[in-house]
């Protein structure tokens, strides 16, 4: 709860109906998915609740956000911003924190369909934006989390891998102009949108050095460096015909597969072969999706329930599968891309099982276009979280996969995580194979204390493993403990990051539980 005077001052900014410090509301906001395993990692009770926020505030404009942040500075109360708010990284790390729920900032500000970019507020979802951009034959990069999350949060504050990354890149690299309320309450505008006159959103770098480098890295600052109120990012040509016809009922919709799409699922049989095939396909610049999943993971992306997972044996039994979706705007392009794929199948002695051994439901194609494949990770145990998350060459991704199998098996044997034979990873290419990332989605039972604790231990051991073997830095290097673990092994970057935090947040007002404190 807030002191009366403080509450009134917040109410003055957003109106009484948009601030709530009641017990019911603040308790509800302390819940989040995977919070139990974060608690467990921190040696706390493995419950799905974080510290309870002092209040929840719903601003609707950048000016309101600014005033709230200023008030937070005045009262030395921390804030945590959230867009759609799914995941433990949305949670306050102390009791002295208010949540800025940005759901009222839900406008698509601009779609520049000629210059291929959109400007959005935090609560615009990927699905909402895609529906609008499709009208112009365009699509948007969506993270693997799915179309329901906020592209703004992904671009400014989170990670950025998506299933369509070969064609649509990484969220961090698609950013143009940015509007950003700094932790001290100043409004910063990056690039061309920062001009006093004739400002526009078409570029986010300069004049001079690009402050996008302070805004985020491979991972975002997760609200630890301020609040992003608008962002411009690139759009991409929609990969095929924009016809989108669904019928039937959830979850078994029928989808009319649009011109021109073709799916390939191939068993590369060995990891060394996978590496070669990955590169060969990506060098040709033809894929819309190009991902390696384990046999089990492959079965999962075509299934909507445990029951339906069971009849995916022909594909789930594959040793080292590769999923490639090609899509084309014209018939000529489609024929060319198929020709390239045919040649690769011959050159690498591969068989495409789609259409011969297995035919997926048409809904798969709709989910691929909507970046909706990630949700299938939940079907087996109800919960998953990814260890790993490093990103560089295909070689390091494949090596990480291979070498981590015994480690994962150890936890499978303990009965604390789902059995994917230790092989369950997702590797995707970016920007036609210029770089790759690997993560290891690991299924666990969020309702079982043993499983939660086991999952936390598994994550911990993975961090040590990656450090020891120099396999790159994983996703979740965030929070003081992790930065202090990895920093000394990585050019002492944590010292520089702390200086940034101190310079831009002198009062430590932006909650740094998932970032870094100035210490």
């Amino acid at each position, binding site marked *: 709860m807030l002191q009366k005077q403080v509450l009134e001052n917040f109410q003055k900014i957003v109106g009484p109906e948009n601030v709530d410090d009641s017990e019911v509301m603040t308790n509800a906001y302390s819940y989040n998915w995977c919070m139990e395993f974060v608690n467990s990692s921190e040696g706390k009770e493995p419950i799905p609740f974080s510290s309870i926020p002092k209040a929840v505030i719903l601003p609707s404009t950048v000016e309101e956000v600014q005033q709230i942040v200023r008030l937070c500075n005045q009262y030395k109360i921390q804030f945590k911003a959230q867009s759609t708010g799914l995941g433990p990284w949305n949670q306050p790390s102390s009791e002295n924190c208010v949540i800025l729920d940005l759901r009222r900032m839900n406008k698509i500000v601009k779609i*520049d369909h*000629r*210059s*291929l970019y959109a400007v959005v507020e935090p609560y615009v979802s990927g699905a909402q934006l895609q529906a609008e951009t499709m009208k112009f034959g365009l699509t948007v990069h969506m993270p693997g989390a799915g179309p329901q999350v906020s592209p703004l949060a992904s671009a400014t504050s989170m990670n950025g891998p998506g299933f369509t990354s070969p064609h649509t*890149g990484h969220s961090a*690299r*698609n950013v143009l102009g940015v509007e950003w309320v*700094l932790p001290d309450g*100043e*409004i*910063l505008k990056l690039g*061309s949108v*920062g*001009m*006093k*006159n004739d*400002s526009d959103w078409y*570029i986010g*770098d*300069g*004049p*001079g*050095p*690009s*402050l*996008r*480098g*302070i805004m*985020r*890295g*491979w*991972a975002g*600052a997760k609200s630890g460096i301020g609040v992003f109120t608008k962002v411009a990012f*690139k759009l991409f*040509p929609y990969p095929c015909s924009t016809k989108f016809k669904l019928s039937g009922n959830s979850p078994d919709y029928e989808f009319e597969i649009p011109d021109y799409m073709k799916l390939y699922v191939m068993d590369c049989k060995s990891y060394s072969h996978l590496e070669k095939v990955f590169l060969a396909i990506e060098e040709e610049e033809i894929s819309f999706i190009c991902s390696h999943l384990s046999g089990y993971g492959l079965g999962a992306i075509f299934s909507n329930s445990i029951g339906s997972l069971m009849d995916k044996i022909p594909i789930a039994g594959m040793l080292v599968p590769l999923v490639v979706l090609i899509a084309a*705007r014209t018939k*000529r392009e489609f024929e060319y891309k198929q020709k390239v794929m045919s040649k690769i199948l011959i050159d690498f002695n591969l068989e495409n099982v789609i259409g011969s051994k297995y035919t997926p439901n048409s809904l798969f194609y709709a989910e691929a276009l909507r970046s909706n494949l990630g949700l299938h990770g939940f079907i087996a145990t109800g919960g998953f979280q990814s260890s790993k998350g*490093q*990103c*560089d*060459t295909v070689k390091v991704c*494949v*090596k990480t996969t291979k070498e981590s199998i015994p480690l994962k098996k150890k936890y499978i044997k303990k009965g604390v995580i789902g059995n994917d034979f230790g092989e369950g990873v997702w590797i995707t290419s970016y*920007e036609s194979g*210029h*770089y790759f990332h690997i993560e290891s989605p690991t299924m666990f039972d969020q309702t079982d204390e043993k499983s939660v604790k086991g999952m936390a231990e598994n994550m911990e051991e993975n961090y040590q493993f990656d450090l020891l073997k*120099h*396999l790159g*830095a994983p996703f979740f*290097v*965030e929070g003081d403990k992790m*930065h202090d673990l*990895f920093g000394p092994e*990585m*050019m002492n*970057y944590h010292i*520089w990051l702390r200086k*940034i935090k101190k*310079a831009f947040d002198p009062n430590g007002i932006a909650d740094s539980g998932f*970032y870094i404190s100035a210490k």
Partner: protein
Amino acid sequence: MNNHIDTLVHSLAKICGSKNISVDPNVLNPYSSDMSFFKGNNPNLIVWPSKTQEVTKIIKLANQMDFSIVPVSSSSNDRHHGDTIPRKDNCIIMNLTKMDKILSIDKKNRVVMIEPGVTFEKLIPKLQQSGLRLLLPLYPTGTKSVLTSVLEREPIIIPRYHWDTSDPLLCTEVVFGTGDLFRTGTAAGPGTLSQQKKAGQAHVNPMGPTQFSPYRVIQGAQGSLGIVTWATMKLEFIPSEQKVFHYHSNNIEELLDFQQKLANYRLCDETFILNNLNLACLVKKSREEIENLTNSLLKWNLIYILAGRGNLAIDKLNYLEGDINDLMRDSNLTHLESSNLIDKNEILECMNNYTAEPWRTRYKGSYQDIFFISNFENIPKYIKKVELKHPENLGIYIQPINQGTSYHCEFDLFYDSENGSETNDLEGKFNEISIDLMDCGAFFNRPYGYWAREVYARHIEQTSTALRKVKKIFDPNNVLNPGVLCFDK
């Protein structure tokens, strides 16, 4: 030599040997001015380090002995933008041309690692031997440093490979103004570079480490935050087939429209628009040839290249050409004319290679370039504005960047610098036009020389405040290129 410089020479000699230091005015003079109108100071001396450790030691010494450092990497003296002219007293030039090793060429991962002294004339042929190509700016001068071209965000000519403003820059090794060594992107670790390599990494991910991306602030900093001692850069394979298309028209809008579609659907590799004079300068050498070609060409010229590789190269070209023909038909382009006035190989030479002497000097010996980033809609407005003020001897270059989301617009004002009154006249015009453009929304994202003050004055104050915070972190004693950008306070 005064005492202070004496001591300095002595200390620097201990770091990199006395033969790598010079106080000779003949050697120093070329560093106190360049082709721009910017006026600065004389450097005290010049030092040529040859290793990262030497760079580190020199920067640490600068912090102790209170002198400042201007880094320079290109081997030629053709510097154009005033960014390497000392602005303060007590400044030395750190010339990095002796750090000129190509540290690795990795074909599989399409990446090269180079030191700052590596020039286009050294790197391009080496890569060609491996079947690889750099993402080049428009016909770069051979003696220019590849690394500084990339650090300065010179536009590259293949927009579809320009995924991010920072491309083709990937990871860097940098010595910050504090004298601390750092590596950005995946090169930060965990592990040493050789341990990372052993694990299969090739430093192709520029993002990070973790929750910040320092390479983005080093880029565009004009050497004022850190000195880069190597960088990795994105490469592409050399196509086995390239087909050149040249269309000209007197209607810029129509060409821009068509080019935008090509870029949006990622149909072509290289593409840009030049006015007749600039295209003539690009492909011809003598003044007479340039004038003849200029007179034969229509005012605006769109060049684009289709490319394919391997067994299916021709299939690829056919599909692209077919799709582009459909696009042209549907776009109802009435002013466009296909041109055969230039040998296609002459154009390809400018796409795939470097030039011995800057092509922009071919017409009148000298030029001043005004360049900025624009959105699509405003390009014709800017062209009109500049042409009104300076109708003659004007080269124009329009380059879609960042996958067509914005445009590099460049106006090359050609003149004879031997002619005093012409030069004076041009200086006035250069300043006036620059300011005019800034006033109507042109985004000067690389604010060199006198532009810097004007540019930052036209941006919200928070931009400079934030940048100064960054400067304070990475170069708290202001030893690196003091006075550039908004770092004058």
